[in-house]
């Protein structure tokens, strides 16, 4: 064959190949053997209202399902928390439910190797152990106030040596305690910023990792753009320019642990002004004079050195609390991460309360659209769908750990929480857990804690589950969220509540219902008379369906109802709380930096690390993605002699971590910031060996008042380590944020 012929045949073969690739492969139509929903529309699908359980904010969501599979999750527009919005975690829940690493079957741990067993054998094993334990069982959850927690409280309670605890988000205890001392209910006070003209955010990274990012971001947006004639102003005070801080008008880099002092300093100016102008007569002049006396040592001139904000500027920030009352202060991780977290929260709530009082008298309007639900209903819901706040403190988790070390428990039940990974390593939870003879984990994924357990029971994802949930904060209306299965479980999983009820009944323990769905239905039916706005003409099933269609129950505060403003338990009793102690830090003078561990919106405390979407989502400020980083102020970076990507070692008395450095101008020079949630070792392919776990650095420093872990009280050192990596960023290095940071 000559060259010309060879080329011709070659061209013919190449083009034939291209044509072949254009052809359509045989397509198949694979219908369900039994359709999951009778008459389900294969294109339009169905929409179900339920409640997102990716965190405990309790956002109402609507799930679109097609052919029995969840396709899309969006906010429920009638829900008072989500208001039609959904955050990154809720959106990505469809990736979790269909995750390839989900646990598919019950498994038993045989010398470190997990073997699949049947549900009958698994439940039989649990029953046998519960009988032997005869009390002496502990239950640990993730801080959820839900029907499972209520059922467990009912089954196990604190009888015969049983113990119940929560591995809650750090610092929530201080937010609850700080509010509870001024108000008469143990819930986190969550300010509605919608109508606030001026708000000071005190370490409140609310839009990405707050108590309820969706609700708080919504009210933030309403304040900014929801009112045609007004634009709310925001000042962020804290050590790091977080995404929320970047959205504010001004960032004040106040030193760690001094935000409560700033609040009291503002309070001093406000009280002084109120007395001078003779405002807020309902408070009484004697009370005001008492407050002035108590606040005498907190004048801006006396405190500005500690706060590192000019006295004049403190006065400027205080002015709107009188002139534009009600103005607001919002507390966040930057307040409760220290040993004075509770007293700082109290100081902040005091200023809010006082400004509300001034505003009420000025405008003659009630500030908060609040309905007090019937006390009987509140008590019933709290008793059945949650744990008492005192069972959810970090101090209690410490007591549990000590108990395990002392061999006090024979059976441990762990539900959807990973304390081996996300509590300080110095707590030694893993070592303590080894002392418990039989541990059960209810989980959707293998993780660092589940791998330590003897029996692994794969739980339904919340999209496949029944539950009822009470949000951990108070957004102005009492809310009972319902969670219903929106898709049919496709793995050999069972709902934790149903398994525990079955096992407890077989072990001879009194149980309140045969399964979780009937438990929830029974509780709601008993209290139906108190559920305003559920039409009374409906029968039991109809009212249940009515609530499921909405995603739960909450009173419609535009129709009827008695508007009330949360009132201070006793204004005159507040003065005793107007004290802020200095924060104490863990680490001697050889550790020169304050550690600032923070949650990102996508990683949370680490549970987002096994999702590709979460790694792909860039951090809003640094724009880093698919990797771990350690933030250092650029001035300090040059002092240490490192540039972006150089590996550094951060050490505390309890351990050390390494990672690439990211010089970040939005950080105080004396602070090192580290995102938490990285550094997994047993959480799946995407999570394992990505970065380091900031929890390895923390000691056990507790806010004595609330029992919360003071997770930002650790001092650390930093040194240059070997090597360098390229930082993966989703923005140009001279992007808009960076420019603004330098201007500040």
């Amino acid at each position, binding site marked *: 064959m000559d060259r010309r012929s060879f080329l011709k045949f070659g061209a*013919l073969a190449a083009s034939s190949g291209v044509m072949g690739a254009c*052809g359509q492969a045989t397509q198949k139509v*694979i*219908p*369900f053997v*039994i*359709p999951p929903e009778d008459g389900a*529309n294969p*294109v339009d699908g169905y929409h179900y209202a339920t409640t997102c359980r990716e965190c405990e904010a309790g956002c109402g969501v609507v799930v679109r399902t097609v052919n029995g599979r969840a396709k899309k999750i969006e906010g429920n527009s009638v829900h008072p928390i989500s208001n039609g919005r959904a955050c990154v975690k809720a959106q990505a829940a469809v990736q979790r439910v269909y995750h390839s690493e989900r646990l598919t079957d019950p498994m038993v741990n045989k010398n470190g190797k997990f073997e699949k067993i049947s549900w009958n054998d698994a439940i039989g094993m649990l029953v046998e152990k519960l009988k032997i334990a005869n009390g002496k069982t502990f239950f640990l959850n993730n801080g959820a106030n839900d029907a499972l927690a209520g059922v467990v409280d009912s089954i196990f309670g604190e009888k015969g040596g049983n113990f119940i605890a929560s591995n809650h988000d750090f610092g929530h205890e201080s937010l609850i305690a700080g509010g509870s001392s001024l108000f008469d209910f143990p819930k986190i006070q969550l300010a509605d910023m919608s109508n606030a003209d001026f708000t000071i955010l005190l370490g409140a990274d609310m839009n990405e990792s707050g108590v309820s990012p969706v609700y708080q971001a919504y009210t933030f947006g309403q304040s900014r753009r929801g009112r045609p004639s007004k634009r709310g102003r925001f000042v962020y005070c804290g050590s790091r320019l977080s995404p929320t801080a970047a959205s504010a008008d001004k960032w004040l880099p106040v030193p760690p642990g001094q935000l409560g002092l700033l609040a009291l300093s503002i309070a001093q100016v406000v009280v002084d002004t109120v007395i001078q102008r003779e405002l807020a007569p309902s408070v009484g002049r004697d009370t005001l004079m008492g407050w002035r006396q108590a606040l005498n040592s907190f004048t801006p001139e006396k405190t500005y050195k500690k706060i590192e904000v000019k006295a004049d500027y403190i006065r400027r920030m205080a002015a709107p609390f009188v002139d534009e009352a009600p103005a607001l202060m919002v507390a966040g991780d930057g307040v409760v991460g220290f040993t004075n977290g509770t007293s700082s929260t109290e100081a902040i709530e005091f200023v809010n309360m006082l400004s509300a009082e001034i505003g009420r008298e000025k405008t003659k309007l009630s500030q908060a659209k609040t309905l007090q639900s019937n006390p009987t209903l509140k008590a019933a819901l709290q008793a059945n769908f949650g744990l008492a706040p005192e069972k959810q403190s970090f101090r209690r988790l410490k007591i549990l750990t000590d108990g395990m070390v002392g061999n006090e428990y024979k059976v441990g039940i762990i539900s959807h929480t990973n304390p081996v990974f996300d509590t300080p390593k110095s707590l030694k939870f893993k070592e303590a857990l080894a002392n418990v003879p039989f541990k059960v984990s209810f989980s959707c994924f293998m993780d660092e804690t589940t791998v330590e357990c003897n029996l692994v029971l794969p739980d339904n994802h919340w999209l496949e589950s029944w539950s009822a949930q009470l949000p951990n904060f108070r957004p102005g209306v009492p809310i009972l969220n319902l969670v219903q299965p929106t898709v049919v479980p496709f793995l050999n999983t069972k709902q934790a509540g149903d398994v525990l009820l079955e096992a407890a009944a077989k072990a001879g323990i009194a149980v309140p219902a045969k399964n979780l769905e009937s438990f929830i239905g029974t509780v709601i039916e008993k209290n139906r008379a108190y559920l305003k706005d559920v039409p009374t003409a409906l029968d039991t099933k109809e009212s249940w369906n009515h609530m499921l269609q909405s995603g739960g129950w909450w009173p419609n505060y535009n129709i009827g109802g008695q508007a009330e403003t949360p009132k201070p338990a006793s204004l005159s009793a507040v003065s005793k709380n107007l004290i802020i102690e200095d924060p104490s830090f863990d680490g001697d003078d050889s550790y020169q930096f304050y550690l600032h561990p923070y949650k990102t919106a996508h990683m949370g405390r680490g549970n987002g690390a096994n999702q590709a979407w979460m790694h792909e989502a860039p951090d809003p400020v640094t724009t880093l993605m698919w990797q771990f980083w350690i933030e250092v102020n650029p001035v300090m970076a040059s002092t240490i002699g490192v540039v972006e990507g150089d590996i550094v070692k951060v050490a505390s008395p309890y351990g050390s971590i390494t990672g690439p450095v990211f010089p970040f101008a939005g950080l105080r020079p004396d602070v090192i910031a580290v995102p938490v949630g990285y550094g997994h070792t047993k959480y799946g392919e995407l999570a394992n060996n990505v970065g380091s776990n900031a929890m390895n650095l923390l000691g056990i420093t507790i806010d004595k008042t609330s029992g919360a872990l003071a997770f930002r009280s650790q001092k650390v050192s930093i040194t240059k380590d070997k090597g360098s990596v390229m930082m993966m960023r989703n923005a140009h290095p001279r992007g808009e944020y960076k420019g603004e940071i330098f201007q500040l």
Partner: protein
Amino acid sequence: MVKFGSLSTTAKVVLGFIGTAIATFLVLFYIFYEGPFYLVAHQPTQPINYSHKVHADDNKIPCQYCHTFARRSEMSGVPGAARCMNCHESVKQEAPEIKKVIAHYENNKPIEWVKVFDLPDHVWFSHKKHIAKDVSCQTCHGPIEKMDVVSRTNDFQMGFCLDCHQENEAPTDCWTCHT
């Protein structure tokens, strides 16, 4: 302009190769999409020898008993084995093909039917809208109730759709189908 004769030998070879490839591609493209290959009735082998004739013609079972979504959705839907068992729970269980269906049902294993009718991704078609206008199934699917083995009787080129739309004064705007 560079004359062909002035090109180097290598350039001539490359250009010749590309030219031949493009020409061959165009010829094959025409034959594949416009020529007789595409018009050949598509009659794939199905995992179950299901007969539309037996069900829809001999036993007069309405089309929408099985294709339940046709009047409510873009897609007509293919029934699951459970729907087959509505009748075959008590009808002709001994037949070899029905035994296959029963096996799928009892083992919860879906039947993997092979698609006969399909449209390109750039065409939006709604069964619901056509049924609402009383367009019969046979208009597009041919005399399917007479077929033991389903085959494609139309080429489903754009002309086929437009002829019918014009005849029935249905919209002929581009975005009616190419949304």
